[in-house]
């Protein structure tokens, strides 16, 4: 079976673009619904259940409401940048997902269609580059609003995104070293070949990546840029109607991109666990599902139902991370700003740097010993990473890094509470 070429390839590309854009918008809409339903359930309420069966038409009602609402323009805002801000926020959020493969290649009468919008060789780098463009939208809209809270939110957003991008990138380096490539299609293939999803041999990178991804998407417990109790709603305080909605869509699209990315990088993307019949990769002019003992390629048998099954598995993995986002949001309280910065620069950065060194040495030693890239290779790395993860969690916990508000216990003297009792004599004097 040959890859699709010519006019059908262009048509297939357009179809994929439309399908993915629609899917992302629908998933974003229903993630807001899921967020409201799940937060309600967590608080023993029932959530939106009035519009349509089980409230399933609620996102449509919300969208209609946002389009019909009045657009307010602050008199002192810089109009050009004020309008540009939401667009600059939403566009990177929507195009980052283009490089994520979402299913096994689909055989059609005209050839095999890769189930990824753009299988660019720079995969992961594209996601990093585009998603960090999102901070421009936040900063510009916060500045153009001419509102101190919006401005503070924008400042926090830029500081936080820059800080956690470092840890995010360093956590990624471990996966890139293990896969030996940055293309996401290749990453999925390498995880199928290793027989381990990277979440196990690179468990610490997985944890660091999840933490950094939470910070990158401005979700609780890291939602400093919009901390309601401190900054009204941060950078989008002055926005209303559809412009506010665009920030909302951007936040959820970022969440979805991050979830899809975590699923692809660490949970094997569309790979079905404990099965090899779904494996497929375009290798030297043919689709293969693996190599036999002698190293000769085994041709992959592609089928429409296999593509569908892998698509379902990919959706489940992405959905799991989306659920995790919502679940964590409604459980953990917000960090203090200095705690966020401490976590970013003093914990995640050195830990991820050290971990990259450990993984690099381990891979080097394993290669030197001639261990083949496969189950045993993954097992050794899993043990090493497991030890690193336990060490990291031990180091992070019990007030060694994350501290409560009470600081004086570190000094070797008792905490002096102010004596606020009113002496009896003072009352008798009245």
């Amino acid at each position, binding site marked *: 079976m040959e890859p699709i070429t010519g006019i059908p390839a262009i048509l297939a590309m357009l179809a994929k673009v439309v399908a993915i854009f629609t899917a992302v918008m629908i998933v974003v809409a229903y993630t807001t619904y899921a967020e409201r339903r799940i937060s309600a359930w967590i608080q023993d309420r029932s959530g939106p259940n009035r519009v349509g069966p089980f409230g399933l038409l609620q996102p449509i009602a919300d969208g209609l409401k946002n389009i019909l609402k009045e657009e307010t323009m602050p008199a002192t805002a810089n109009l050009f940048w004020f309008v540009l801000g939401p667009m600059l926020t939403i566009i990177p959020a929507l195009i980052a997902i283009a490089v994520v493969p979402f299913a096994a290649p689909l055989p059609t009468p005209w050839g095999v269609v890769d189930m990824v919008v753009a299988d660019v060789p720079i995969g992961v780098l594209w996601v990093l580059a585009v998603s960090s463009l999102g901070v421009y939208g936040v900063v510009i809209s916060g500045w153009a609003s001419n509102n101190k809270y919006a401005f503070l939110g924008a400042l926090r957003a830029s500081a936080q995104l820059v800080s956690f991008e470092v840890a995010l990138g360093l956590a990624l380096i471990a996966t890139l070293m293990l896969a030996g490539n940055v293309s996401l299609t290749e990453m999925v293939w390498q995880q199928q070949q290793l027989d381990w999803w990277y979440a196990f041999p690179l468990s610490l990178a997985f944890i660091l990546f999840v933490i950094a991804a939470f910070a990158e998407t401005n979700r609780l417990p890291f939602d400093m840029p919009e901390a309601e109790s401190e900054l009204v709603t941060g950078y989008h305080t002055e926005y209303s109607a559809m412009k506010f909605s665009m920030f909302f869509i951007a936040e959820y699209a970022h969440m979805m991109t991050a979830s899809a990315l975590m699923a692809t990088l660490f949970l094997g993307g569309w790979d079905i666990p404990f099965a090899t019949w779904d494996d497929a990769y375009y290798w030297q002019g043919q689709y293969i599902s693996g190599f036999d003992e002698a190293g000769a390629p085994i041709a992959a048998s592609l089928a429409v139902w296999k593509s569908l099954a892998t698509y379902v598995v990919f959706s489940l993995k992405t959905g799991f991370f989306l659920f995790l986002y919502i679940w964590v949001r409604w459980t953990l309280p917000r960090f203090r700003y200095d705690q966020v910065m401490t976590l970013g620069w003093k914990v995640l950065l050195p830990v991820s740097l050290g971990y990259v060194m450990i993984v690099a040495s381990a891979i080097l030693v394993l290669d030197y010993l001639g261990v083949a890239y496969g189950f045993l290779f993954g097992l050794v790395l899993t043990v090493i990473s497991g030890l690193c993860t336990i060490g990291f969690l031990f180091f992070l916990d*019990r007030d060694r890094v994350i501290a409560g508000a009470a600081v004086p216990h570190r000094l070797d003297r008792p905490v002096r509470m102010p004596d606020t*009792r009113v002496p009896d004599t003072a009352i008798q004097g009245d």
Partner: protein
Amino acid sequence: MGVQVKVMQRPEPGRTSYLRAALKGMALTFRHMVNPNKVTQQYPEEQTDLSPRWRGTHVMETHADGRPKCVACGLCPTVCPANCIRLVGGEDDNGNRYPIVYEIDEFRCIFCGMCQEVCPVEAIHVGQDFENAEYSRDRFVYDLDRLMEQDHPSTLLWDPSDPRSE
């Protein structure tokens, strides 16, 4: 007696596992999420049980022949702290006093229930009702006919021998 300060006895931060606490929190929220017993009341279908002493919009009690029980004594506009009752009394041929105008501005009313308490003939009552939405503001000045038409139950007065209404 001075002001008492309660100092919370917390474990030392160095002895507290934040990760374990976070995981316990996650488990707790998950348990609540799957818990089928939700506290939400599906309001229009499921009506709230109002207390018998709930004080809502007013009710004017009537005699069997449809006349209001009010004798236009003027006690309720006098006692009303919000000054929301307007009463113009008249006298018929038999010398019985009756209200010519009796209006209550429900927007000004603070629902203290003193009009009910002070009424010598148990005519005006506050009622057990809260569904009083209208499309225009002037509909909130209830005249005598409107007060007599109200069909919700009227509020029970506080009984000193049963202070908790049990």
